[in-house]
C-alpha cells in the first residue's frame, strides 16, 4: 500500500477517467432536477422579494429594495406565526423524542408479537397527514367528536381558543410522526453493544444509570439526526393547522403564512420575502444543529 501512495499521481488512467465520467453522467439527472426545481425558484423568490408585486395589479410592480422584509419583521402577524411555529416545534419534538424512545425500546425488547407491532406502528407513519388531521379534528369537534362526551366537557369548543386548538394540532402531529422517530431511534438502539449493558449491570448500575450513562451516549448520533429531521419537519408544519383551523385564533404557522400571501392573496413580492425568511430560518436551525450541537451528518449523507 505504502509504495502505491508514494507514487506521484501525474497520469490519471483511462479507467479512472472513465469511471469519473460515468459517475457524473449517472448523477447528472439528479443534480439537474434538484437544482432546477429548488435553487432556481428560490433565486427567483429572492428577486421577487425586492419588488412590490401583486398579481391583481401587475402594472403597479415596482422595485422597493428590502422594504418588504422591513415591513414583515415589524409586523405582529409574522412574530405571532413565528411563536406558534416555535411552540408547535418545541412541544411536538420534545414529546415525540421521549415517547419515540419508549416505543423503540419496546420494539427492541418485545419477543412475542414483534412483527404485528412493527406493522401497526407503520400505519400512522404511512397515513396521509391530511387524513390524520381530519380524524383528530372530528374527534374533538362539537358536532361529531366523542372526546367531550367521554371526558365530560359537554360543549367545550376546542377550536375556539388558541392553546386548545394548538393542543389538538400537536396531538395529530405527534400521533403521526412518533412512529418515524421511534424507528430512527430503534436503528440507533440496536447498535448499542449488549455487553456494555451487562458490564454496567455487573458493576451495580441501576436501570436509570445504565440508560443515562451507557445507552443514550452510545446512540447520540442517531438521536441528534432524528432530532434534526423532526425539528425541521415540525418547523415546516402546514397540513394540520390548515385542515383544523385554517389559521384562525392565532394558529397560523410560517409555512401557512407563506402559502396565504403567495397563493391566496397572490401578493408575490411580500410572499416571496416570507419564503426567503422561511428558508433562512431553516438554514439557521440546521446550522445550530451541525455547528452548535455537533450533529454528525456524514452517516446520513452516506460518506
Amino acid at each position, binding site marked *: 500500500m505504502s509504495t502505491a501512495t508514494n507514487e506521484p499521481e501525474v497520469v490519471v488512467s483511462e479507467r479512472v477517467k472513465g469511471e469519473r465520467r*460515468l*459517475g*457524473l453522467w449517472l448523477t447528472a*439527472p*439528479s443534480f439537474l*432536477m*434538484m*437544482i432546477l*426545481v*429548488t435553487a432556481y*425558484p*428560490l433565486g427567483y*423568490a429572492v428577486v*421577487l422579494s425586492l419588488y412590490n408585486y401583486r*398579481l391583481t395589479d401587475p402594472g403597479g410592480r415596482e422595485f422597493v429594495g428590502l422594504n418588504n422584509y422591513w415591513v414583515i419583521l415589524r409586523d405582529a402577524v409574522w412574530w405571532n406565526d413565528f411563536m406558534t411555529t416555535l411552540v408547535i416545534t418545541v412541544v411536538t419534538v420534545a414529546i415525540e423524542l421521549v415517547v419515540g424512545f419508549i*416505543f423503540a425500546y419496546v420494539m427492541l425488547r*418485545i*419477543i412475542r*408479537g414483534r412483527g*404485528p407491532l*412493527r*406493522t*401497526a406502528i*407503520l400505519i400512522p*407513519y*404511512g*397515513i*396521509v397527514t391530511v*387524513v390524520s388531521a*381530519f*380524524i383528530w379534528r*372530528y*374527534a374533538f369537534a362539537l*358536532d*361529531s*367528536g366523542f372526546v367531550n*362526551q367521554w371526558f365530560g366537557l359537554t360543549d367545550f369548543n376546542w377550536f375556539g381558543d388558541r392553546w386548545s386548538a394548538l393542543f389538538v394540532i400537536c396531538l395529530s402531529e405527534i*400521533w403521526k410522526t412518533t412512529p*418515524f422517530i421511534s*424507528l*430512527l431511534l*430503534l436503528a440507533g438502539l440496536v447498535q448499542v453493544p449488549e455487553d456494555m449493558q451487562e458490564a454496567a449491570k455487573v458493576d451495580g448500575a441501576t436501570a436509570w444509570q445504565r440508560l443515562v450513562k451507557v445507552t443514550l451516549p452510545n446512540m447520540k448520533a442517531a438521536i441528534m*439526526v432524528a432530532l434534526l429531521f423532526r425539528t*425541521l419537519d415540525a*418547523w*415546516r408544519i*402546514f397540513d394540520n393547522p390548515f385542515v383544523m383551523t385554517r389559521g384562525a385564533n392565532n394558529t397560523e404557522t*410560517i409555512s401557512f403564512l*407563506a*402559502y396565504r*400571501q*403567495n*397563493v391566496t392573496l397572490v401578493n408575490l413580492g411580500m410572499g416571496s420575502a416570507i*419564503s426567503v425568511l422561511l*428558508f433562512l430560518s431553516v438554514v439557521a436551525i440546521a446550522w445550530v444543529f451541525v455547528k452548535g450541537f455537533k450533529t454528525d*451528518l456524514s*452517516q*446520513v*449523507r*452516506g460518506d
Partner: protein
Amino acid sequence: MKTSRWWTVAGLVIVAYSLFPLVWMLSLSMKPPSDIVSGEPQFLPTTWTFDNFTEVFSQSLFTRALINSIGIALIATLFAVVVAMFAAYAIARLDFRGKRLLLSLALGIAMFPQAALVGPLFNMWRGLGIYDTWLGLIIPYLTFALPLSIWTMSAFFRQIPWEMEQAAQVDGATAWQAFRKVIVPLAAPGVFTTAILTFFFCWNDFLFAISLTSTDAARTVPAALAFFQGASQFESPVPYIMAAAVVVTIPVVILVLAFQRRIVAGLTSGAVKG
C-alpha cells in the same frame, strides 16, 4: 420469563395507540349524516351504513381526485426511482468527484422548506402553462422524493456483493446474463422498497396539491378533501370526508401489511446508517 410478557403488554398498548384513530375513522365513515348534527355525538354509529362510500364514489370531485392521486403518485414514483437508481449505483460503485456534493445537495433538499417554493413555482408554472396539470405536480414530487430515494437505494446497493457479477462471468455467463441473473435479483428488493417509501411521500403531499392546482384536472385526494361537501347543504359532510379518507388509507394499509419488514429496513438503513 415474566418480563417478556410485560413487553408484550407494552406492545399491545402501542398497537392500540396506532390503530385507535383508524377505528374512529371507520366508525365515522359508516355513520348516517344525521348522527353528526345530534347534540351528544357518540363514538359508534346509531346505524351502520355503507351509503357514504356509495355517495363519495358518485361524486366526480372525488373520483377524479382519486384518479389524479393514483396517476401522479405512480408516475412521480417511477421517475424518481429510475433517476435515483442511476445516482445510487454511481454512489455505491464508482469513485468520482461530485459524489459528496450530490449527497450534500440531497441533504439540503430533504431539509428544504417546501412552502418557500409555493410562490415562485405558482408563478413559473403559470408562465410555462403547466399550472393545474399532472406534470406541474409530478415535477416537485419527483424532486423532493429524490433525496429519500437516493439514500435508501444507495444504502441497499452498498450491501450487494458486486463481485458475484465477475464470478458469474468467470463461470461462463455473458456480461448481460451476469447482470440480469445475478445483479438484478439482488438489487430488486432495494429498488422495490425505495419505490414504496417514495410512493408514500407522493401520496401524502398536500401543500403542492392545493397550491399548484385549481380544478379537478390535477387536484389530488388530500386537496379535494378540503373542498368536499355533503350530499346536500343541509347534511354534514363529515361522514363523506371520512369515507374518502378510508379509501385513500386502504393502499397505505395494504402496503404496510404486505411489506412491513422491507419498509422498516428501508427507513432505518436509509435514514441513519447510510
